[in-house]
Each structure stands twice: as structure tokens, then as C-alpha cells.
């Protein structure tokens, strides 16, 4: 069993995703515990050029899997080959659809133990130990590879589990993965549609203002966007708001949307159904504004404001701008 910590580093439009920077920092930290090195498995448009730059965020080496805008799982053959050759202790994958697809393929192709989505990772007695919330977060479990389990462990990691480190000066040593064909290559993107300008990636925002059914309309979201801008954050939504067509599904937080872990989650006109809660319960601070004093979100928010959102939100935006001095 090796001691290196591999991590999936997704690129798009020539730049690493925030998840790649977070996992670089996390991999460097875990590698410090295991006595190995952080190694990136870089893929997606811009990976070949940008992989060396991951050195500034904690990666010692980077293995480029491919540079095409193909479904991420296409790279699983070369990822599996790199993992077999490199014998790491663990492979970290972001708990995003692409990250999960690639992680799943590694688990299936190589027969590996799988963990997560983790909210903390450590090394105990030479084994990886993953902490995750299961059963809608009602139970926290700590898991590790069973005796005799093959290595490496594959661990899905929630966004904002690790904070990217301030870029240093280092460059990762870059190599090219050996090309490997798998049946996954038969799935191809035949059309790609952009419906709106790419918003801030919700999973990567540290401040989130989320709106629900109580916001009432597409226009109602304008005041939420102002508040999010004042906070320096992003707008999210419940499934009800996305189903109503007020915001695109890319902004949906919850079981079937994004799983977020921001420093501040401010829920506006959101009742807090369990399906939404599982998407935001790892937020460090939860504030809710709802006119229903019995809304379920009032039971797990840190601060619950019983009020009409339309009376509060514009004034709160103003007050935050005033205090920030602009």
C-alpha cells in the first residue's frame, strides 16, 4: 500500500475547478499525515496546460488524463491505469456528478472500497478514515477499508471540506497518462446548450442566499440576487422554485440538486423540507427568513427570523452595504 494521495482535478474553459484547488489542499494535508505526496489526476479542457499550476496549490505531481470536452467518465480508463501504476493510499474525488461518475468507474474497474461523501478525512493506523453523514444526516459514521481490502480507497469529498491554500510558487511535475480505451468512450456529447451565462458555481460559494416557494415569482428573486451580491455570494433555490421555472435547475440545492457547505446559508421563503435540508445541512451558519413561525427550517436554523421576506430582504441588503462601507 502506497502513501501518495491522488485527487481528481477537473478543468473547464482552461482553468481548474474550485474543487480541484480544494482537493489539492486536502490531498497535501492528508499526504502530510501519510508521508506521501499529493498527485493530481487532471482532465477536461485546459488540463494539459494548467496541470503544472496545481503545484502552487499543493500538488507535487500531476498526471494529465486528457484535455477534451468529453463526459468525465471517458477518462476513467487512463485514470485506472495511473492509479494502478502509482499505487496511492487514496483517491479523492469531488462529490459532483462528474466526480462521482469517475470515482464509480474506478471502484468498478479496479474493485476498490468506496467512501463518502465525506465531510472530514484522516489517516489512522495507515488506513484512510472517512467521516460522513448517512441517512439524511441523522447518523454520522466513520468508515475505513476492511482488513484485506484492495488499495487505494476511493473517497468522495463534499465541497468546502478543504479550503484552497494561498497559491505558492511551486509547479507540479507533469506527466501524461497512458491512453486506455474503455466502453465509456462510446458515450459522446452530441449537443451542448448554454441557457444562461455560467453563474457562480453554487457548490463553491461561501455565502449562499437561497429562495423557495415563498419568493413567489421569477421577479421576486431580484432582491435575493441583490442580497447575495452585497454578501459577496451566490443565489440558490429550493426544488419548488426551480420546478416553478423561477430559476434554472443549476441553482437547485437539495437531494437532487447541489450539496453545499457554505460559511453562511441564508434561506428566504424556504420551508426546509428534508429533501432540501440534506443539500445544506453542512452549512456552518444557517439563517432563515420565513413568515410561517412553524416552518420546519425554524427547527434547525441557527437564527430564525419570523417576518415577511419582502419587508426584510431589501433593507438587509442596504444595511450590509452600509456596514461594509460601500
Amino acid at each position: 500500500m502506497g502513501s501518495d494521495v491522488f485527487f481528481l482535478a477537473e478543468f473547464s474553459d482552461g482553468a481548474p475547478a474550485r474543487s480541484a484547488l480544494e482537493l489539492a489542499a486536502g490531498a497535501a494535508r492528508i499526504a502530510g499525515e501519510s508521508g506521501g505526496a499529493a498527485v493530481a489526476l487532471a482532465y477536461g479542457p485546459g488540463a494539459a496546460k494548467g496541470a503544472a499550476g496545481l503545484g502552487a496549490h499543493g500538488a507535487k505531481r500531476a498526471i494529465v488524463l486528457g484535455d477534451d470536452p468529453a463526459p468525465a467518465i471517458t477518462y476513467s480508463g487512463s485514470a485506472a491505469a495511473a492509479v494502478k501504476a502509482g499505487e496511492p493510499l487514496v483517491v479523492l474525488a469531488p462529490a459532483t456528478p462528474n466526480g462521482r461518475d469517475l470515482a464509480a468507474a474506478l471502484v468498478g474497474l479496479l474493485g476498490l472500497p468506496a467512501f463518502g461523501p465525506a465531510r472530514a478525512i484522516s489517516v489512522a493506523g495507515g488506513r484512510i478514515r472517512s467521516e460522513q453523514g448517512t441517512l439524511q444526516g441523522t447518523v454520522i459514521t466513520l468508515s475505513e477499508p476492511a482488513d484485506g481490502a484492495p488499495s487505494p480507497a476511493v473517497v468522495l469529498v463534499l465541497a468546502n471540506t478543504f479550503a484552497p491554500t494561498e497559491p505558492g510558487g511551486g509547479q507540479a511535475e507533469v506527466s501524461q497518462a497512458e491512453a486506455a480505451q474503455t466502453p465509456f468512450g462510446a458515450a459522446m456529447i452530441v449537443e451542448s446548450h448554454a441557457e444562461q451565462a455560467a453563474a457562480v458555481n453554487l457548490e463553491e460559494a461561501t455565502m449562499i442566499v437561497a429562495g423557495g416557494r415563498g419568493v413567489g415569482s421569477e421577479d421576486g428573486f431580484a432582491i435575493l440576487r441583490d442580497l447575495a451580491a452585497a454578501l459577496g455570494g451566490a443565489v440558490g433555490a429550493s426544488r419548488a422554485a426551480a420546478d416553478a421555472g423561477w430559476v434554472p435547475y443549476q441553482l437547485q440545492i437539495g437531494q437532487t440538486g447541489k450539496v453545499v457547505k457554505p460559511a453562511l446559508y441564508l434561506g428566504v421563503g424556504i420551508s426546509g423540507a428534508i429533501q432540501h435540508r440534506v443539500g445544506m445541512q453542512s452549512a456552518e451558519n444557517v439563517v432563515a427568513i420565513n413568515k410561517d413561525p412553524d416552518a420546519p427550517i425554524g427547527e434547525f436554523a441557527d437564527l430564525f427570523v419570523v417576518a415577511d421576506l419582502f419587508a426584510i430582504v431589501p433593507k438587509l441588503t442596504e444595511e450590509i452595504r452600509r456596514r461594509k462601507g460601500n
Partner: protein
Amino acid sequence: MKIVVCIKQVPATAAEKRYTSDLRLDRSASENVINPLDEYAVEQALRLQESGAVENVSYLSMGPAQAGEALRRAMAMGGDDAFLVTDDALAGADEWATARVLAAALDKLAPDVSLMGMASDDARGSLVPGAVAAIRGLPLLSYASELRLEGNTARIRRLNASGFDIIEAPLPVVASVTDQVGEPRYASLKGIMAARRKTLETWSLADLGLSAAGVQGGALTRVVEARAPEAKPPTERIENVGADEAVTKIADWLAARKLI
């Protein structure tokens, strides 16, 4: 054209959950249902059957004998028959073991599309569809908000960062769907009656040519600790005050935590 929908029986969302002394979920302690996200896969399959694109819809589950109830409920929604893989060696199965067993059962059933929900309610790893595809050597079409079958091709719509992609693969494929494929139907009384007459076949590991050793006793992972989440301090409430006062209090609260 044939679809097999994979179904997991899970504890109902609102049900109380307990872990047994060996840190496995005590599935006898709670009310069990079809994993809600798997119902969308059932719905997608039945819509394809109704449109004539698919002749046969079967269901497959791995779990204890009581998981047969989930298969009966799925057959009450529609479809033709069901298969349950149940074996003592599979108690506590992890993602890899589950994928290994489902893959073997799907090899035997040989559908054009092996269809699953995008995640399970209880674990949410979302790894089983991709791992099954890898083990079976088939393309994966995951997180589909719509699945279409045309000729020898499966085509899905899948959200991307700013819109959506159309992704295609030649059949057979493994696919997973989101809750955007359409609301699952309720089982009618007629459907429930009809489901009683549909075939539910039970398979052991040996029936699939697998052994307990071959699936590593069901798991490559083990739970070393299960505990309740950290208790949070009680919710602070702001109510029955004017908007200006409420706003000042919220801003103070945020400032005290260095959020503004």
C-alpha cells in the same frame, strides 16, 4: 427492447433509524419504502413502455427477503416481472459489493437498458450506476433528466454548468435518471391486484455464479463508529419586531460571526 430497473428498499425518510450493535443499519426497526429516487426510474421505464419504445420492463433488487415488498410495489405501478437477489452473505454490502452483484444479475437478464435512480436516500454515494457499468463493460449515461431510445441508440439530456448536454451511446447501456423525468405515478388498486399475479423470482449468490468470498463477505469497507450528529445550540428567534429592528439584529448576528 427491454429495460431492467434497479430498485433499493430504504427506510422511509421520516422514519426513525437505528444502528445494530455491529454498526449496520437496523432495517427491521423502521418503515421501508422504494427509494424515492428509484421511483423516477420506474416512471421513466413505464413511459417508454407506454410509448412503444420498450416491450418489457423488469425490476431487480438486492436486499433482505423483505425487499420483495418494494418489488411488489414497483410492479403495482406497472411493468412485467421482478427479481430479488437475497443472500445472508450480502448483509452490510457496500457500493462495490452491491455493484458486483447487480452486475452479475444484469448480465443474466441482459436488458438493453439497465436503469437506476440517481442516488439512494440513505447513503447518497451515487456510485452504483457507474460501478455497474464498469464491471459490465458498458457505456454509462448518468443523471439523465430525460431518456430516449431510438434504433440502437440511447440518448439522454443532462444538465451542465450553464445549460444542458445531449449525450448518446449505443445500446446496451447503464443509465441513471434524476427527478426531472416526470412525477412517479401512484399504484392503482387494479395495479396492486395485478402485481400479485406477476412473477417475483428470488436468486441467491450461487444462482448468479458468485460466492461469499467472491464478494469479500459483502464489503471492502467497515464502519468503525456511528454516532448522533453534534448537538447544535438552540435556534435563536427574531419575531414580533419591526423590520428595521429585525434587520439590525440580523446584521449584528452576522457581524458577530464575521460573516459581514
